[in-house]
């Protein structure tokens, strides 16, 4: 039994979390090194090992969440890619789906394609929707097209031919031609990466993969050797957007799975906690400095979506409007994001309305109270005025603040113009911020046909525990959980993922005419891919598990619902029953007389961990300087309660018995607000559980 190690990289900080066999969690925060993130990790770990707080050779599991893939796209630092496509379809990548992510905006600029027109070449060939060759591949023309790409100096080649989801024959033939003419140039073919219908989505995904592949594989090589250099020999695994982890080999060839690596980890942590609490349904709510994210977890599981966009910015209506970024068709945890966080700027709009974000004060100048020149009030400034946040310092004393600057900014920009007293203005800002963030929570609950009142809010991120109570109340949610080290909870989530590989294949068949043998064969192909990848990760066949799923819809419907395939009956029967039921819960109706169609088959290949079980008695000892919380302070709780004296305590001061609010639980990286009328206790894993008094509270 050894240590588990989680490494989470953010733009500013890198978080390291060690879990010892006895349940002790040790955390460490070091500055990130954007020039080469692996260096910061190595330095941070070296310090921990040098201090004797953990032993390198005792680490037997390492999971890493990385922004390297995303940054390569956002910063335009990927490979110079060439694209081969079917004659007549050179511009699919640039035409995209035409749609704009914002309505009425004559200034919106569509992102430049990752492969410009000069590096997109057509080849004559044609495969039909059934996978039959209509026109053979023109090999001479293809050779010329490849040479033209090489003359453009491409460093990687993506291949995406029309209808290649139905047959990869021509793509494979082309890949062989590339290998013959340009050995050593990495090639990504769409039929291997994503044999799924819709040419733009498949092209974009294949191109993104080719674009980030060299960057990601180089980074993972450096990190692996850095870890080895420190004596950490446990295999490195990387967190995927889907919530599973994958080995370095798979991550290097299919880096599209790493796009939302970091945010996924927090939800994985929430899922683990949900399991520990008997499958309790949770809304994971992560509020940081510039954005707030929400995801839904129940029975220890989370929902996934089939695609995401990179670099599209944040868009509240993002589920209706898309096209803002680079489309990647890869499973990702269903996380909704809005542009509201502690640093979000507050302003009054032209009609006299109060607006929160999405503009942010960022780290520089930061909220007005930081005293770094910011004069516009932020959400954090409102929280300082209300007394939610310590008026003298943040982060356990490492960031001094000046509450007077918060008051001044809020008085000048909000309270003054609206003719309100300062507390009323601050309380209003707090509520408007909550209303904005509530949209993220609704996006994963009501929009999905789930009632948020059936869930507890698990709030983390530096600002989550401050807002959780009022936010939950606004959604009529009564129970709130605050995990240990809320600011580092994402890194904690890195301790729990299974190794997973996700595969998809389009399989368009009506359920009523489903041929079981054909279905079995199609699943067999996907599982063979999974077995191969798991074997590369070092899993023996006995430790492999395969989950079969199908994307289904009523014939002609727009989007599909993904259902697990039960094994307790003929596929066509169980899928029919399950689909009607899920359609009813999701959309409020089902239609027994309509034809149900399978569109895609999916397999999740899982490697069963032989690593240590996570103990129930998790307890966190921050290896961090932290000032002990002290005394009481005046806190404003809105017009119903007014300003009250609230006791300020540490997490350990809360026991297993309920304590009544108002209370502030102050820690190194966050403050938990327990409003009057609510009560709080400490449960498993040092989690704080808050129960609000009145489900109809404001």
């Amino acid at each position: 039994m050894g240590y588990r190690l989680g490494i989470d990289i953010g733009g500013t900080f890198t978080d390291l979390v060690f879990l010892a066999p006895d349940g002790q969690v040790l955390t460490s925060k070091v500055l990130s090194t954007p020039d080469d993130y692996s260096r910061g990790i190595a330095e941070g770990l070296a310090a921990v090992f040098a201090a004797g707080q953990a032993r390198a050779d005792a680490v037997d599991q390492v999971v890493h969440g990385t922004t390297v893939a995303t940054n390569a796209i956002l910063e335009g630092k990927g490979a110079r890619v060439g694209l081969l496509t079917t004659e007549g379809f050179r511009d699919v990548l640039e035409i995209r789906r035409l749609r704009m992510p914002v309505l009425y905006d004559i200034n919106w600029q569509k992102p430049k394609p990752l492969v410009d027109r000069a590096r997109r070449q057509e080849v004559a060939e044609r495969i039909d929707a059934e996978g039959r060759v209509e026109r053979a591949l023109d090999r001479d023309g293809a050779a010329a097209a490849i040479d033209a790409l090489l003359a453009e100096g491409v460093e990687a080649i993506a291949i995406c031919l029309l209808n290649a989801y139905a047959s990869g024959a021509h793509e494979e033939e082309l890949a062989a031609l590339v290998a013959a003419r340009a050995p050593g140039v990495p090639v990504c073919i769409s039929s291997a990466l994503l044999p799924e219908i819709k040419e733009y989505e498949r092209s974009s995904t294949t191109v993104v993969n080719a674009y980030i592949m060299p960057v990601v594989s180089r980074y993972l090589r450096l990190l692996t050797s850095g870890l080895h250099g420190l004596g950490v020999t446990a295999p490195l695994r990387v967190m995927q957007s889907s919530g599973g982890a994958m080995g370095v080999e798979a991550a290097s060839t299919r880096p599209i799975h790493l796009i939302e690596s970091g945010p996924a980890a927090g939800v994985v942590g929430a899922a683990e906690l949900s399991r520990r609490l008997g499958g309790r349904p949770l809304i994971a709510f992560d509020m940081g400095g510039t954005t707030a994210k929400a995801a839904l977890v129940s029975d220890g599981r989370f929902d996934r979506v089939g695609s995401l966009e990179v670099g599209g910015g944040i868009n509240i209506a993002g589920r209706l409007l898309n096209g803002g970024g680079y489309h990647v068709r890869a499973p990702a945890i269903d996380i909704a994001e809005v542009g509201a966080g502690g640093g979000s700027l507050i302003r009054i709009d032209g009609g006299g309305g109060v607006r929160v974000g999405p503009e942010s004060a960022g780290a520089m100048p930061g909220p007005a109270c930081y005293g770094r020149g910011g004069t516009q009030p932020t959400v954090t400034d409102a929280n300082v005025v209300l007394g939610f946040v310590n008026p003298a310092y943040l982060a356990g004393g490492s960031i001094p603040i000046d509450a007077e600057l918060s008051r001044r900014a809020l008085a000048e920009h909000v309270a003054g113009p609206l003719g309100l007293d300062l507390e009323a203005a601050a309380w209003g800002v707090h509520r408007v911020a909550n209303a904005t963030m509530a949209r993220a929570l609704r996006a994963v609950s009501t929009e999905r046909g789930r009632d948020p009142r059936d869930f507890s809010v698990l709030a983390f991120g530096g600002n989550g525990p401050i807002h959780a109570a009022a936010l939950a109340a606004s959604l009529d949610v009564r129970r709130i959980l605050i995990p240990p080290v809320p600011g580092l909870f994402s890194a904690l989530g890195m301790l729990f993922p299974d190794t997973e590989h996700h595969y998809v294949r389009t399989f368009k068949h009506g359920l009523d005419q489903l041929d079981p043998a054909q279905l079995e064969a199609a699943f067999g192909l996907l599982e063979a891919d999974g077995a191969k990848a798991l074997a590369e990760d070092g899993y023996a066949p006995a430790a492999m598990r395969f989950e079969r799923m199908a994307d289904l819809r009523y014939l002609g419907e727009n989007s599909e619902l993904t259902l697990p395939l039960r094994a307790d009956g003929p596929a066509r029967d169980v899928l029919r029953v399950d689909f009607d039921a899920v359609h009813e819960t999701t959309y409020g109706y089902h239609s027994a007389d309509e034809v149900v169609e399978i569109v895609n088959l999916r397999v999740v290949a899982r490697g069963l961990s032989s690593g240590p079980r996570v103990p129930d008695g998790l307890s966190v000892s921050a290896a961090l300087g932290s000032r002990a919380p002290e005394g009481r302070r005046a806190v404003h709780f809105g017009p119903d309660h007014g300003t009250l004296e609230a006791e300020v305590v540490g997490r350990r001061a809360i026991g297993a018995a309920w304590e009544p609010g108002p209370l502030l639980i102050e820690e190194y990286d966050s403050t938990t607000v327990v409003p009057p009328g609510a009560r709080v206790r400490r449960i498993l894993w040092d989690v704080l559980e808050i129960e609000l008094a009145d489900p109809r509270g404001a």
Partner: protein
Amino acid sequence: MNEVPVTAGIRPVADDPFARDLVKNALATIADEMALTVARTARSFVVKEALDFSTALFDGKGELIAQGTCLPFHLGAMPFAVAAVMKEFGDRIGPGDLFITNDPYDGSTHLPDIVLVKPIHAAGVRVGFAAALAHMTDIGGRIPGGNASDSTEIYQEGLRIPPSRIHRAGVPDENLFRLIERNVRVPDKVLGDIRSLIAACGQGERGILELVARHGAERFDALCRDLLDYTERFTRAEIARLPKGTWNFVDHLDNDGISPEPIRFEVTLTIAADEVTIDFTGTAPQVKGAINCVYPFTLSTALACVRSMVDLSIPNNAGYFRPIKVIAPEGTIVNPRAPAAVAARGITGIRIADTIFGALAQAVPDRIPACGANAPDVGVSFGGYGPDGRSHVFLEFLVGSWGGGPWRDGMDACTGTLVNYSNTPAEMIEAELPIAVERYALVPDTGGAGKWRGGLSLDRHLRFKLDGATLQIRSDRRDHPPYGLEGGESGAPAWVDIRRADGRVDTFPQKFLTTVDAGDVLRVRLAGGGGHGDPMLRDPERVLADVREGKVTAGHARASYAVEIAGNPPAIDWPATAARRASRVTTTGA
């Protein structure tokens, strides 16, 4: 509370200045949730891939309080449906009722757009309405797809449903459902879409009832009124920032598909103090063909255009409409009298917008690009029966590129601000229909020349695999291509023909109906976007970049930009370019 004096444009609400923001947020979320339901559960291509639908919420009196993030063209059209229902049923509207209309002269804007309106009651009192609208794949009538531009009376255009009660106290009227079922070519899709609209209305109802439960009916109503007032204030403040004056612009549709005459659109735009007036006086009389545009659609188009000139965060509700006045003389193509045919009014809406933007470009030349082809000028309707007797209907509207300027090139292949259309993936078409997509690509040299180049034309080639199928095309911008601005040239004109299976090429007027057989290829070329500014002022490096990407040929670079490019890799011949430009520049003002 309306008597509280306005101070610096800001009027606090009596007891809770933030409650309005919360209600605003909640309403927008509910309307979007309704839209998501439609987007996910609709059956037809038009709804699911083109997002040709809208959702909206109203207060108890029928005033629009929120609209979903859907088709901008519908902004302002939905209130007419609710008004039509209220007019028809008055105090006979009860809890559990649900109403339907598609009558363009009574609540809708053309027959394919079916609108569902659900009154919302709390404790027996009406507290609001939820409404949802979607463009159906078919609505019966002469031509599959319900979009024919050659009908001359509304009676030819399909099933016309006046405002009718389709649920009474929660019980569906089976007769009405059966009537619809028997009158459309693809009843499963149409009824599926109607069911999806009903589900969305139900969701809207639940959302409003939750808000009413939280705030109380009276306070909810007061908050809604305050929200509309706030929106009006915000809009007026934004309009007040625009230059004041009167501007005039004229553009044309090529013809109505019946008579070859061009159709004139004239807009006189007046911005005075904090109000905008858009006057269509001078616009052509209503036409015989089915491109007449009923007033609600003209109004909503105008509202959507002005929307691009003001803060994007202004909520979509009736308060936004108040400072904007639209004058459309009765009997013109922008406000026809019944029974004028209106099915293909979308193209007229596009030209209305192009004309309004032409006028706005004079008012705010630093903000408005040249004319694009980024709204669906071309509509394709295909219908036929397979050997198995199965009916196939395919409908798509094609969207091209933006006009150039005033500070960038026109975006190649991107929807404009009026319709947020998506294209249909070729692979989906091929998997589900007897159609193969042979080409979908940008066309070099088709963007209007200018300091800022217009976006390129798009080619779309469809090969049919059925004999004896009906194909109906509605196109335009052949005789009147998208205009340039500030000395920029027009984009390339649109073109449509059919290459028959035997290789012969048939040409047609802009709007036509024909029969196609297996092997025939429809070849659509959309217009290119107009250019902005003098082409002689275009940075030669930008011309070179276009040549390198194959968006402009060396010949076009020379002819339209006086830029000499040669060699491999291509490079600018600077002396030759300087000489060429010197000889051209004399005729142009900077």
